[in-house]
């Protein structure tokens, strides 16, 4: 079947199977920043934004996204540049496999609640697992990003 998706502001048509998940359709079409982690919504690595809300693309049927606005990390490049700078400063970078999904989730938090305190940041991001960093440096970086008015 054919679907129309608006990805990062660009409308595109894709030929998909009815049972295909958004993650697979995106990767198949070279949106390689969207990655597979756990297959069952537990890790957050496959996060994309649908209408600015973070969702696990491993469990969203692509067919249900007709005419929805999908954002991958390529769609928020200037925000990523800010966040990545703070990640660098605070030493929050490790393998980075989950960093695009982290950036998307943090960005949607910023849209929802720019004044989030650290507990709210943790609650909002709890679905984004990280096995490398121990989380602490990430939180410091995210707090700086949220406080950055530039």
């Amino acid at each position: 079947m054919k679907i129309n998706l608006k990805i990062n502001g660009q409308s595109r048509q894709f030929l998909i199977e009815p049972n295909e998940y958004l993650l697979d359709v995106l990767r198949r079409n070279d949106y390689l920043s969207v990655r597979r982690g756990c297959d069952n919504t537990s890790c957050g690595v496959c996060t994309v934004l649908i209408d600015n809300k973070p969702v696990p693309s491993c469990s969203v049927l692509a067919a249900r996204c007709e005419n929805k606005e999908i954002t991958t990390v390529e769609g928020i490049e200037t925000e990523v540049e800010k966040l990545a700078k703070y990640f660098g400063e605070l030493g929050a970078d490790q393998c980075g496999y989950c960093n695009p999904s982290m950036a998307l989730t943090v960005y949607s938090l910023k849209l929802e609640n720019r004044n989030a305190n650290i507990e709210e940041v943790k609650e909002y991001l709890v679905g984004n697992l990280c096995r490398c960093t121990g989380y602490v440096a990430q939180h410091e970086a995210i707090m700086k990003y949220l406080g950055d008015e530039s």
Partner: protein
Amino acid sequence: MEVKELIRAKDALEAYTLLNEFKGSKVMAGGAWMKLSVKSVDKLILLDDLNLDYIKEENEFLEIGAMTSLRTIEMHPAIKSMNSGILAKAIKSIMGVQVRNIATIGGSVMGRFAFSDLLGALLVLDCRLYFHDLQEITVFDFLQMPKVPSDILLNIKIKKTAGKGYFHKVSKTHLDFSLLNIAITKNELFRIAIGSRPQTATLAINTANFLNSQSEINEETIKKAVEIACDEIKVSTNLRASKEYREVLLKTYLTRGLEEVIK
């Protein structure tokens, strides 16, 4: 998950008819976990076009469309304030924001998941489910049905109450299923639900009746109530916790919960 055909139902009647006429057809609500339990579907029925994604606030009730995401519900101001925000608290403890953005209240109810944190909270609120065919049923009665009805859940109506509430979930990590969850409301009357026992949430009716018959709730009556609950509510062993440990959790958090709602 194999899907032969994907059908976006135009209205509840079409969804209901498809579901009941074709063996091997299923309704997908949020779809968060469907692929974990379903291998193959002939006709996958979607309710996306039924306009069931809404929260309507009326004088005495909140009406929540079945396709409303858990996240939308937990963020709603009326739900955040109702009975100490018990429903919002229960929902917030479920997985991460990403999952709650796709999981719907309808799917969570119809799944009747044993580990559900939501069902306990719904049980202790005064709330009713509205189906296409079955019409109106309480959550308690719905959970008592031997089988999930082949029906389309349209919405849930919750009576607005201003009493206190308590929700507590015990889990290994913040992303884990409950080892046990406890929901309590105190409006005119007490209502208590215990979930993830590991069986599906249920009301502690005798316990509530006892408390409701007391003129004063104090340390003694709470102790007695907890005894009744331990007798009334069956807990058992699964991979997450043993029966004995669940008994301790039940005792501890029921006591603390009751202490909190009578403050």
